[in-house]
């Protein structure tokens, strides 16, 4: 009996955060809508909870509620939040302000947007300790330098003297993690901290977060849509869907044996894999041939350096690389938006004018584009009918009844019921449906070549999968060729015939998909491939150990020549 009581008291000491029956409502179009529908969440000291779900599942809203915070237009309508014995929803504004940044800290998705551009990093670091009377300025500056060093930021002594725009995205995200630690909080909310980063940069940030959370025994809520990432970070995973909990379990158990159908579907996402088409014959004329292209936006700098690759009929070329590697610039050169300094673009054996203004209407028709953000690529004031009709009437000269029929046929092709969707506005569609409209608009011109610029990276995995399947089907039906720009190697596996790996504006390696994914790799391809998180809780630790060993070996080799 006594023993039982003791464990109970111990458990209470351990318990840091308890959220019970949380209901959060948000206002949209003058109506209150439930965003979170009665979720329970608890967290012990030093524990890391992974919160997973698609966009719109309410992960961020729930994470912020753990700080007693609601965004404008939202309200916690029911439930309770207890942090370290305090009822956050009953506290005065002033009392809760004292907790935020001090005992509970937040790390936002986009560090670039969440650092104030007007102040130096060190000033933003020292703000919270000063406001909450945790440390003096000198002490917190020294602490900042210590943390900067700990998470491997370059020249930690002077790093803080820079402004946010003077630092790269990955460094900024690490600096934000350091800032969250400035008051040595008990709890940190990480809200998709690596979603905006490249895989290679993501690793550095993940390693820094993991390291620091362990060292300071900080409890954390790690929010992400990427299961493989959460698996590295969390002790326990809680799955959310449309504001409700699906299930929760310790990480390893959850990975091994998910119970609910929805969770299983998340695990088994990448089932679509295109069968690689045989390499084209040497004598075949490529649809698009990029020949020794060098291009840049200013006269001093080359963003593309002597880039060459071909895209054949009914083939998909995936162009992969980190941000800044020149993928999108290559697309701009092909479309003629950016005339290259040297080299040329050849379409079906005939050279295209470098500037799109000099291309004929038919040449323009042949090359179409689908954009990453369907949200901003579609004019919000136009109805679906007009959005799709425009290229059809402009390039093909259709009008009246023929045009209407064509639009309906296109809608049917992208699997949207014409009668139901033809008169809607883009705002009345979901993200995946908007991207389908983007696809319909591209094929409306009856092109032979389409550039897909990160078309799935803003979408949830299940939706992205559907889009990839659709693109695949359209390719065989309409004999299309794709240039598929992406930074996601899983997407490459799913859709490509051939892969072009780019780095710093140059092609590092290009080969058929099956060959490229098989060792031996070019060192950079190796780095890219090994950086993709796997569904294994120990993947990150193993990888870091392996890389440290490799580095030591290299150093050893250098030391004794």
């Amino acid at each position, binding site marked *: 009996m006594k023993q039982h009581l003791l464990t109970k008291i111990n458990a209470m000491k351990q318990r840091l955060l308890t959220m019970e029956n949380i209901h959060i409502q948000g206002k949209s179009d003058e109506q209150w809508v439930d965003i979170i529908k009665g979720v329970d969440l608890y967290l012990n000291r030093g524990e890391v909870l992974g919160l997973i779900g698609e966009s719109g599942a309410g992960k961020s809203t729930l994470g*912020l509620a753990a*700080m007693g*915070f609601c*965004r404008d237009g939202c309200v916690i309508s029911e439930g309770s939040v207890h942090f370290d014995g305090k009822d956050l929803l009953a506290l005065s504004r002033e009392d809760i*302000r*004292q*907790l*935020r*940044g*001090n005992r509970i*800290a*937040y790390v*936002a998705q*986009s560090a670039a*947007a*969440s*650092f*104030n*551009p*007007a*102040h130096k990093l060190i000033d933003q670091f020292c*703000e*919270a300790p000063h*406001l*909450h009377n945790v440390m003096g300025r000198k002490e917190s500056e020294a602490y900042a330098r210590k943390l900067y060093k700990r998470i491997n930021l370059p020249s930690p002594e002077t790093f803080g003297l820079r*402004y946010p*725009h*003077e630092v790269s995205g990955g460094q900024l995200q690490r600096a934000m993690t350091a800032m969250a630690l400035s008051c040595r909080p008990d709890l940190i909310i990480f809200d998709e901290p690596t979603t905006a980063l490249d895989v290679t940069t993501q690793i550095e940030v993940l390693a820094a977060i993991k390291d620091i959370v362990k060292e300071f025994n900080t409890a954390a809520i790690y929010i992400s849509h990427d299961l493989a990432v959460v698996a590295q970070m969390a002790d326990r995973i809680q799955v959310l869907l449309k504001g409700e909990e699906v299930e929760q379990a310790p990480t390893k158990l959850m990975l091994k044996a998910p119970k609910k159908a929805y969770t299983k579907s998340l695990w088994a996402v990448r089932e679509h894999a295109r069968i690689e088409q045989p390499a084209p014959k040497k004598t075949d004329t490529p649809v698009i041939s990029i020949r020794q292209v060098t291009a840049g936006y200013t006269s001093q700098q080359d963003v593309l350096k002597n880039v060459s690759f071909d895209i054949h009929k009914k083939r998909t070329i995936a162009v992969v690389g980190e941000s800044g590697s020149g993928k999108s610039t290559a697309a701009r050169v092909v479309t003629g938006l950016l005339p290259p300094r040297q080299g040329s673009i050849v379409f079906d054996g005939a050279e295209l004018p470098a500037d799109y203004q000099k291309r004929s209407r038919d040449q323009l028709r042949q090359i179409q584009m689908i954009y990453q953000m369907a949200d901003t690529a579609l004019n919000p004031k136009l109805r679906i009918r007009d959005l799709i009709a425009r290229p059809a009437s402009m390039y093909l000269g259709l009008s009246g009844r023929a045009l209407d029929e064509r639009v309906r046929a296109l809608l049917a092709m992208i699997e949207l019921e014409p009668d139901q969707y033809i008169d809607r506005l883009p705002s009345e569609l979901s993200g995946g449906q908007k991207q389908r409209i983007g696809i319909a608009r591209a094929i409306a011109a009856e092109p032979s070549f389409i550039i897909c610029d990160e078309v799935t990276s803003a979408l949830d995995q299940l939706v992205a999968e559907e889009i990839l399947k659709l693109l695949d089907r359209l390719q065989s039906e309409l004999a299309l060729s794709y240039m598929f720009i992406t930074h996601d190697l899983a997407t490459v596996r799913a859709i490509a015939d051939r892969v072009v790996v780019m780095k710093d504006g140059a092609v590092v390696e290009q080969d058929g998909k099956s060959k490229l994914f098989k060792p031996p790799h070019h060192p950079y391809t190796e780095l890219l491939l090994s950086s993709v998180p796997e569904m294994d809780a120990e993947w990150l630790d193993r990888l870091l150990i392996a890389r440290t060993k490799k580095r030591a070996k290299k150093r050893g080799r250098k030391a004794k020549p």
Partner: protein
Amino acid sequence: MLVKRLALGVLTLILLSLLIFLSVEALPGDLAEAILGQQATPENTAAIRRELGLDLPPWTRYLHWLGGVLQGDFGNSLALRKPIAELIAPRLANTLFLTLYTACIAVPIALILGMAASLFRNSYFDRISNITALSAISMPEFFVGYVMIYFFAISGYFPSMASINAGTPFLEKLYLCFLPALTLTLVVTAHMMRMTRAAIINVLALPYIEMARLKGVKSQRIITAHALPNAIAPIVNVVALNLAYLITGVVIVEIVFVFPGLGQLMVDGVKFRDVPVVQATALIFASAYVGLNLLADIISTISNPRLMRQR
């Protein structure tokens, strides 16, 4: 960057001087005949033309004029037969005094009210300050002036006539010019206040403000330390425009309060067809606009680390 902006400012001024010169040149009527009036015999006219240099080709006269201006010589007034520089100097000093005086009252009030309005958005305070400022700006200046006189001058607290000169002691100047300064404050505050409010509210929607809230920063500090530094550019531009307006556009207020400022000089110049005076005042007004906007651009550049420290 700043050097380029400075050079552009100088270029603008030169173009403006050319424009002013050409538009005066394009006015109908002959200057010499205008001066002589009924004594305009052909010989007299020719003599005057030679004396004034009007027989020279236009571009020579332009360069002469510009060269003079650069040395502080604006030529002679035709009506008063005195060097224009002498006429302008005391009035320019008066105008600048009134402008600075007004700015010292209006700018802090506008900024503080604007920040407070953005902090207490959609509250009664916000609405009342908005309505008051808007009513003040929608009333004609002379009306505001007479209302001021009605309330403050008739009761004897402040003088209704702001007739100052170079010898007036500073404190007395402040006292004499209080009503015109107050009138102008009412006219210019609304614009600056509303821009401050709008610029800050714009910034308040950004992620780094949410971050500041989640760091436990107080609302007041969020406005002053996090939002304001990023809203400086639009605010400074509106302040500059209003200051320029104070230098150039206050002739009606000058008349209501019998204030010896530049505006009156220009109106008199137009009335008496005193072309060189009009030219000179127009050039000063133009320089005020260009100079203040230049200053605003420089301040907004300096306030933005992304422009000052480019990667």
